[in-house]
């Protein structure tokens, strides 16, 4: 629990009676790349604005480096923000934009000139000093906004969906740029996004939020492989989320079929949510008119049961080519299963569908809205 740089304690915030953040606790370590991830309206931007000083929480406190800064004005805080829509000053040149914070701190002209050059080099825009913001592309403007923030040597950089307005290719390039920048600068990044892929690519720690509550905190691997609840599973990547019943430890029943799994401690005959990632479903083709007692069918069954004693029989109903893989829909037990595979099964193919016990995620069903909010200390 050492080196907490920012500690948010019991933060509550409501706008016009709508509770946006409800008794939220979170700390951010030094040098961490932490991402607040969630759908729009989940409170992630409000969190960031509270850290930046643009909103004051109704209750709770913000501790920065051991000091309470809850009601400190934004211009007195040792953090800088990169805004969603760049927010460059339109009537100033690129150099004047970058120098803005330094001029306020009364730095010498020599120092400012060196800093501008250094910052422009860092964001790969050398020689852009005299350009005006409106002559730059979106990606260039965003880099200038980052340069303008980092010349002030903040301890923390807050980034509010900075890549939201860029196209896909540029966004991916900028993701690598940001990781490189973070490593070169050695400062803390707090990043807000609704894009789960962005979060998985860049973060050390992901905080998944929904409706003002933290749903899960963890590394990208944790969040992807071990989602704590159906919301996280659904939000991070594509998932098949199905109702199931935990028969006993390591045995779950889905649509009347019993599957081996590795989860324990859920009790017996307990209704649960079952999550299976589409890439974890394995398909075994069966001949079009193979009778259940024909040798071909029996071979398929034995292949399926090698993976898991439980399996479904279904029919491929839809195929989309996605470049790296095929995205297929398989009708089985009245449910449309999403399956990703590098192997193509034509529409209408009869298949057996199975899944490795390790790839079945079992989660308790939320009993009420409040239980959606995972108790924080359980997961730290």
């Amino acid at each position, binding site marked *: 629990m050492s080196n907490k740089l920012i500690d948010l304690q019991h933060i509550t915030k409501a706008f016009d009676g709508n509770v946006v953040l409800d008794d939220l606790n979170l700390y951010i370590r030094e040098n961490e790349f932490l991402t607040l991830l969630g759908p729009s309206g989940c409170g992630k931007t409000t969190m960031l604005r509270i850290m*930046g*000083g*643009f909103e004051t929480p109704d209750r709770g406190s913000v501790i920065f480096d051991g000091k309470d800064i809850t009601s400190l*004005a*934004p*211009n007195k805080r040792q953090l*800088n*923000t990169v*805004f*969603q*829509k760049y*927010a*460059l*000053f*339109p*009537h100033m040149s690129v150099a004047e934009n970058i120098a*803005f*914070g330094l001029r*306020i*701190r009364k730095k010498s002209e020599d120092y400012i000139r060196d800093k501008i050059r250094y910052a422009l080099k860092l964001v790969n825009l050398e020689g852009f000093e005299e350009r005006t913001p*409106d002559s730059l*592309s*979106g990606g260039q403007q965003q880099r200038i*906004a980052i340069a*303008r*923030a980092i010349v*002030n040597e903040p301890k923390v950089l807050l980034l509010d969906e900075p890549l939201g307005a860029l196209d896909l290719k540029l966004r991916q390039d900028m993701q690598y740029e940001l990781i490189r920048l973070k490593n070169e600068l050695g400062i803390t990044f707090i990043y807000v996004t609704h894009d789960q892929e962005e979060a998985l690519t860049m973060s050390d720690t992901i905080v998944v939020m929904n409706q003002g509550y933290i749903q899960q905190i963890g590394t990208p691997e944790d969040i992807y492989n071990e989602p704590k609840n159906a919301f996280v599973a659904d939000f991070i990547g594509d998932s098949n989320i199905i109702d199931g019943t935990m028969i006993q430890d390591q045995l779950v029943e889905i649509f009347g079929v019993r599957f081996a799994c590795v989860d324990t401690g859920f009790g017996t005959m307990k209704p649960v949510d079952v999550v299976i990632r589409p890439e974890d479903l394995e398909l075994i083709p069966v001949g079009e008119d193979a009778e259940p007692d024909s040798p071909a069918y029996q071979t398929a069954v034995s292949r399926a049961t090698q993976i898991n004693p439980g399996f479904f029989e279904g029919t491929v109903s839809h195929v989309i080519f996605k470049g790296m893989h095929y995205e297929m829909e398989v009708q089985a037990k009245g449910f449309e299963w999403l399956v990703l595979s590098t192997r193509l099964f034509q529409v209408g193919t009869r298949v057996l569908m199975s899944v490795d016990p390790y790839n079945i995620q079992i989660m308790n069903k939320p009993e009420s809205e409040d239980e959606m909010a995972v108790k924080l200390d359980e997961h730290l």
Partner: protein
Amino acid sequence: MKKVLSRIYLVFIFILLYAPIAVLIVLSFNKSKTRAKWGGWTLEWYVKMFQDQAIMSALYNTLLIALLSALIATILGLLASFSLLSMKHRTRGFVLSLLDIPMLNAEIVTGISLMLIFIAIGQFLSHWGYTIEFGMMTVLIGHITFNIPYTVLSIMPKLRQINISTYEAALDLGASRWLAFRKVILPDIMSGVLSGFMLAFTLSLDDFVITHFTKGPGFDTLSTKIYTEVRKGIKPEMYALSTLLFASILLLILIFGRARRKTAASSQPAVY
């Protein structure tokens, strides 16, 4: 043929529009005192006008009131625009339509109601031995009153275009609220502020009706001065004075138009 006709029509319209002013300007240079006879060119009436103490004091009053009322109305309009911006959508619409009323209202009604309220306040204050004297102060207040809606309507659209996160970015970079306003917000809305000021200045400069009802005896601006002089019988100095008033307003309109064009050019969305 059609083209020739439309040309003739256009010329006719312009003659109708500008002939009276042209006559006025020509007469202001006429040596002869009567309108019927051309006595050759002279600048005599201009010289006489500048020597006339009463006219000069009217000119001074006019310029002072125009400047002060435009300045104060611009500042008040700026403050009003900021609070309008922070209002909820419906309240804002309501207040903005309230602002339209003084502009659409007949000037004479505004003038009389201003006069009445000054009298009412004067009577109220007389209980404590204070009086309200009709003069510079009342005219100034009157002009500020009718100028405010125009300044708000010039500033509001510019303010609404502002990306509020540039203001927050300035705070974020260490600027105080005042510095952030001065360095970031003000340059962006400057063209709106300037055109509001120019509009207010021009409106104040040539106002007659409201000035007439709020001025006291012995206090005159150019427009009321011309009016009283003309009633006594037209002196050629009045032609010179009117020409001067026309010329200065024409000049202001040209400057105002330039500011407007600049505003329009800068408000075009940037293409990425």
